[in-house]
């Protein structure tokens, strides 16, 4: 059987199953948590944090080896990465608030300095006798090779914990993201909410290091949220849709990477998330590009049809090729441009509607109803038959019929 299919259906063996389930939970947690970062417009802070994990990984390895232990203990490495990621986060926060640096500049500074330090530490570790087989470079791009049950449990447990906290804090985090000033005024502690959000993102980043890697984890935080934005206009729904997108990407990415040796897991997960994003960008029913183009085209067609009918009713020549095409398509004019019987009837009706709207504006001071005039809405969709009859009487008095 096809190895990819086996992996997707959890038949590729114990280890692959473990990885796929762990990656799915990580993806859900990353998608949901990252949504708040995106809504708060601070998505790139997570990138600085992710790159700041690298020196922590190196230092934790060195410390564990120096203490005579196995340098590859995942919990130890993740703890170390969390420490430097936290320092990086506080660094960005401090630079932004206390200096004249803007947040993007602070992010760039912290990201590059910490990453540089991390690379230096990695190089030193390579020269250590115990460092050669450490496999720490897999933290850059993620790997599922040789993952242990305890690793998978750590990742899954961390992901579930992050999800629970997101659910608990969703209300204050949404309020702060939408309107921090108002949130503060009703008593939400904006600073603590922001820090909690950052800590959550840091937690997801750290547990995602093993599978996705620190360079690309930011994509798993951001892409699901922007994908979900195409499907909903509500923050609460957006968070869970993003979780779904992240979960699918994590699961499928881990399966694909398990089906072929040497495929790095992180990039595959990110590419699958990006594919979901592209599908949403083009084909989402409300906000997708295709839907928008179709809507616009349809609207344009209606405008031209109406305009053409009004021109026919006034016996004016029509030159606009699109108007002519629409009228011909609907059988309102013949090939030579002369109105058909139906075209003449509809033109007369359009002209009558316009006159009735004029009467409506004379008679009705209710702007809510008059305001529904857009040249396209049929008048009987707005006014009742007896109101329209009143317009006709008004027009008759004015001698306009």
């Amino acid at each position, binding site marked *: 059987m096809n190895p990819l299919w086996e992996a997707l259906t959890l038949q590729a063996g114990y280890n692959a199953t473990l990885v796929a389930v762990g990656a799915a939970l990580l993806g859900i947690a990353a998608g949901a948590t990252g949504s708040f970062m995106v809504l708060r417009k601070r998505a790139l802070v997570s990138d600085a944090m992710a790159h700041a994990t690298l020196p922590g990984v190196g230092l934790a390895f060195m410390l564990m080896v120096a203490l005579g232990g196995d340098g590859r203990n995942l919990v130890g490495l993740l703890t170390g990465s969390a420490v430097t990621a936290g320092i990086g986060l506080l660094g960005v926060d401090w630079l932004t608030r206390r200096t004249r640096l803007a947040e993007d500049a602070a992010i760039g500074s912290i990201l590059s300095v910490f990453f540089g330090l991390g690379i230096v530490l990695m190089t030193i570790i390579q020269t250590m006798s115990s460092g050669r087989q450490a496999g720490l470079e897999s933290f850059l791009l993620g790997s599922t090779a040789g993952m242990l049950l305890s690793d998978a449990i750590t990742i899954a447990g961390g992901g579930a914990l992050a999800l629970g906290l997101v659910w608990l804090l969703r209300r204050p985090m949404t309020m702060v993201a939408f309107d921090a000033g*108002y949130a503060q005024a*009703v008593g939400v502690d904006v600073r603590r909410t922001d820090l909690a959000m950052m800590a959550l993102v840091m937690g997801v980043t750290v547990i995602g290091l093993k599978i996705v890697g620190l360079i690309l984890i930011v994509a798993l935080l951001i892409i699901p949220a922007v994908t979900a934005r195409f499907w909903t206009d509500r923050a609460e729904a*957006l968070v869970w849709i993003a979780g779904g997108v992240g979960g699918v990407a994590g699961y499928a990415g881990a399966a694909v990477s398990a089906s072929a040796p040497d495929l790095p897991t992180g990039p595959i997960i990110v590419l699958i998330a990006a594919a979901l994003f592209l599908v949403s960008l083009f084909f989402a029913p409300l906000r997708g590009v295709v839907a928008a183009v179709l809507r616009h085209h349809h609207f344009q067609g209606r405008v031209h049809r109406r305009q053409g009918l009004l021109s026919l009713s006034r016996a004016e020549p029509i030159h606009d090729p699109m108007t002519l095409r629409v009228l011909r398509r609907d059988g309102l004019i013949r090939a030579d441009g002369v109105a058909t019987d139906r075209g003449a009837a509809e033109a007369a009706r359009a002209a009558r509607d316009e006159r009735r709207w004029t009467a409506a504006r004379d008679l009705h001071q209710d702007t809510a109803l008059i305001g529904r005039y857009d040249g396209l809405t049929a008048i009987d969709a707005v006014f009742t038959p007896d109101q329209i009859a009143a317009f006709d009487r008004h027009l008759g008095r004015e001698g306009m019929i």
Partner: protein
Amino acid sequence: MTPADLALAAKDGTVLTPAAEAPALSIRGMTVSYAEKPAIFSVDADFAAGAMTAIVGPNGAGKSTLLKAALGVIPRLSGEVSVFGTPLETARARVAYVPQRASVDWDFPTRVIDVVLMGLYRELGLLGRVRAAHRAKAEACLARVGMSDFAARQIGQLSGGQQQRVFLARALAQEADLYLLDEPFAGVDAATEAAIIEVLKTLKDQGKSVVAVHHDLATVTRYFDRVLLLNVRKIAAGPVAQAFTPQTLAATYGGRLASAQIDQLRLGDGAGLPTGAGPEAGAGPKA
């Protein structure tokens, strides 16, 4: 009485706090600064309970800053704030804030009804479920500002005036006693301005207190009963008839307001005040 005299009078409380009733909002010695330049400096202000008070002053005078700092939205260098005689932190539930419309991203994924439900945050807490009663309350608040038909709209589809009404509905949902509004009439259509002032006057009739940052000098006398003139420092404060005079305006705006513009406001010099100024009308040099 000179503007300085008015400020002095306000400071010892005789003008601003009649009777023993605690003011709705009391600010003492508040200074806020961006970098090294004070945006507002050592402002003492009392906003009377049950009144509608306008905060008036030129651009950059610190009007919005005063509100935001009083609420803790931005940090203050110094100053004490109390609400109905108790520290703000214990009285947050009694205060509703309507921020400037431009302060949020209107493309944010949220619907009108969701924004109004944010006003129930204190009631709902972290975990409380949004029940039918909460929804009904939010819808009633939307009805009060004439926005019932828009409950399910994404907020980005609203006009500026409609956005302002939604913000007001969110504040109404809090069922507060003190309403602080930051430029509620900025960039809204005339119908919205009328609707908002109607809601605010109803609040006042119910005994609530209203404080609004206001930039349109022409409507101060019509909309408000008290005024605080601010230009980094407090220039004058009190009932509109006494504190809103050509002299105090000139002191507030300096050369930025031509005397012809002040004349257009048709303010009295003590005589011929727009509303019955009462026996204590002492504004202006004639008095």
